[in-house]
């Protein structure tokens, strides 16, 4: 930024080497000290920092902007490290002054008498302000880091937009996976499966050990079956978490977004030596070249390595099985059709040229196998009917649901409820819900494997979700049942 404003290289070097003796204006020096403390140490901003910055003439507005800019720099650093982008301007490591490394006497966040935040934050009516309505929907209450920024409603709108795009609209990772990344540190590994644990470790390394982060970390996730889109969503979610972590530390708000994983100065160094999600000649485009995580294994099978085929089968058995259950609506039939599917895959793999991802091709074969079997067994039931999806669906169950339905039943009971609800759906809706909401296929991939256009896929997905909601509603309406249902359905 300084370079863009015409500061010479020599002057920049001087600032980087020792900004305190670089003849900067006192207010500029105070901003640098303040923001360096946020990004280059694991300390929160203290009351003393605030007093010092204010005494140099910095207003609350400029301090809020400094905190937001520091948070944005953390987000951009993590994104560029995670995707292996070459920075347009080489980043320098600015050593923090020594006294940052010792904790001053008063490190507790300043407690503004009214709000408890470091900076005065005027009250906004949470019922009228759209971003707050959205935050409440997503997080059940408005996290304090947002309440601490009411001086800048425009920034809050942008933050809501980013969360909406990533947590709500982004559909490559599940909502639960993204929430784990956003609130990292709140889950013990014991709560997680191997894949989700690997995903959490991946983003933790990106946060705390970026200097060692490399292509091998990306590759490890690919080998676990994560797609490029999923990896990018994980990096972006963790970068957003880093943004909120810095804001929390700067604003003195409650750490709703988990413990802070500090950005070390070393992480600000250029990461040009690393190649991650895209080839080096493509990095400036920002476009990720799709790499099939199964590509290497497929090539081994094509060279005659049968063990590699077993590996592919192990990786994708659940997906194939669920696709077939979705179409056939019968678990025994699905197990039989699974065997046919994998044998067809093996017989045709020599001709697979990698124009689509292997997993997409595989699910297409499973879909065709399932449809063929459905036609033979139940010719009246078809996935092909169109025309009624867009017609109005009239929900009958319109009583409010309890706040936290998942607390009402045990995990096994809940799974039984979902499976029973899904089995009641017509095949053409069931399979879409299973591919999109359980298998987490993208809308594009699900449309391809089912031979549908995106609008038709979306119409079926909505209808399927609403029908499932209808089937589940009697179990979850809030009529004094809360906390009394466990064990009641099995």
């Amino acid at each position: 930024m300084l370079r863009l404003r015409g500061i010479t290289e020599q002057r920049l070097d001087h600032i980087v080497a020792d900004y305190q003796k670089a003849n900067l204006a006192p207010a500029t020096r105070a901003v640098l000290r303040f923001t360096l403390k946020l990004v280059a140490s694991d300390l929160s901003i203290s009351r003393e920092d605030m007093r010092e910055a204010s005494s140099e003439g910095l207003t609350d507005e400029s301090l809020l902007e400094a905190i937001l800019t520091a948070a944005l720099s953390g987000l951009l650093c993590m994104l560029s490290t995670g995707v292996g982008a070459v920075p347009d301007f080489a980043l320098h490591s600015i050593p923090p002054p020594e006294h940052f490394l010792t904790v001053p006497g008063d490190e507790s966040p300043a407690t503004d008498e009214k709000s408890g935040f470091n900076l005065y934050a005027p009250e906004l009516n949470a019922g009228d302000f759209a971003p707050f309505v959205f935050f409440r929907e997503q997080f059940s209450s408005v996290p304090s880091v947002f309440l601490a920024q009411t001086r800048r409603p425009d920034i809050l709108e942008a933050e809501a937009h980013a969360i909406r795009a990533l947590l709500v609209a982004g559909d490559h990772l599940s909502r639960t996976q993204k929430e784990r990344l956003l609130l990292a540190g709140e889950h013990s590994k014991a709560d997680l499966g191997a894949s989700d644990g690997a995903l959490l470790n991946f983003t933790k390394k990106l946060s705390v050990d970026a200097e060692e982060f490399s292509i091998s970390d990306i590759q490890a996730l690919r080998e676990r079956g994560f797609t490029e889109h999923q990896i990018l969503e994980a990096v972006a979610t963790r970068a957003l978490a880093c943004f909120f972590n810095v804001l929390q530390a700067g604003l003195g708000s409650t750490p709703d977004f988990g413990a802070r994983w500090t950005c070390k100065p070393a992480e600000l160094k250029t990461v040009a030596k690393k190649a991650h999600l895209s080839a080096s000649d493509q990095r400036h485009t920002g476009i990720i070249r799709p790499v099939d995580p199964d590509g290497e294994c497929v090539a081994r099978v094509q060279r005659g390595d049968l063990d590699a085929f077993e590996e592919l089968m192990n990786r994708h058995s659940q997906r194939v099985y669920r696709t077939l259950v979705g179409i056939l609506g019968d678990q025994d039939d699905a197990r039989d059709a699974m065997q046919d599917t994998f044998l067809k895959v093996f017989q045709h793999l020599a001709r697979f040229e990698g124009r689509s991802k292997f997993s997409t091709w595989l699910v297409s074969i499973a879909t065709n196998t399932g449809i063929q079997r459905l036609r033979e067994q139940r010719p009246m039931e078809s996935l092909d009917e169109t025309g009624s999806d867009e017609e109005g669906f009239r929900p009958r169950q319109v009583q409010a649901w309890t706040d936290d339905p998942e607390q009402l039943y045990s995990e096994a009971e809940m799974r039984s409820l979902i499976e029973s609800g899904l089995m009641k759906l017509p095949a053409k809706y069931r399979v879409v819900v299973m591919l999109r909401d359980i298998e987490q296929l993208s809308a594009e991939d699900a449309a391809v494997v089912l031979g549908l256009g995106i609008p038709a896929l979306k119409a079926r997905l909505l209808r399927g979700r609403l029908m499932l909601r209808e089937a589940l509603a009697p179990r979850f309406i809030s009529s004094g049942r809360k906390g009394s249902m466990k064990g009641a359905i099995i």
Partner: protein
Amino acid sequence: MISCADFMAEIGNYLEGEVAEDVRLQLEHHLSHCQTCTVLVDSTRKTLKIVTDTGAFDLPDATFRPIAERIMTRVRSEGK
């Protein structure tokens, strides 16, 4: 002012976060005074979360192993 029917026509895109800002504001204005549509949005979101969190139709390894062995027996005989 949009009606419940208008809202239902957009609910899919709204749940996916795929509506333009001005449309979203209109939909949320409707939600602010329509209990039925609010319940539909809330319960459909909860349905989605439950389905995603719970998963369904897991194929237990003990069930899959014999199937995998049968497939690999066929594969090895065809691969020879």
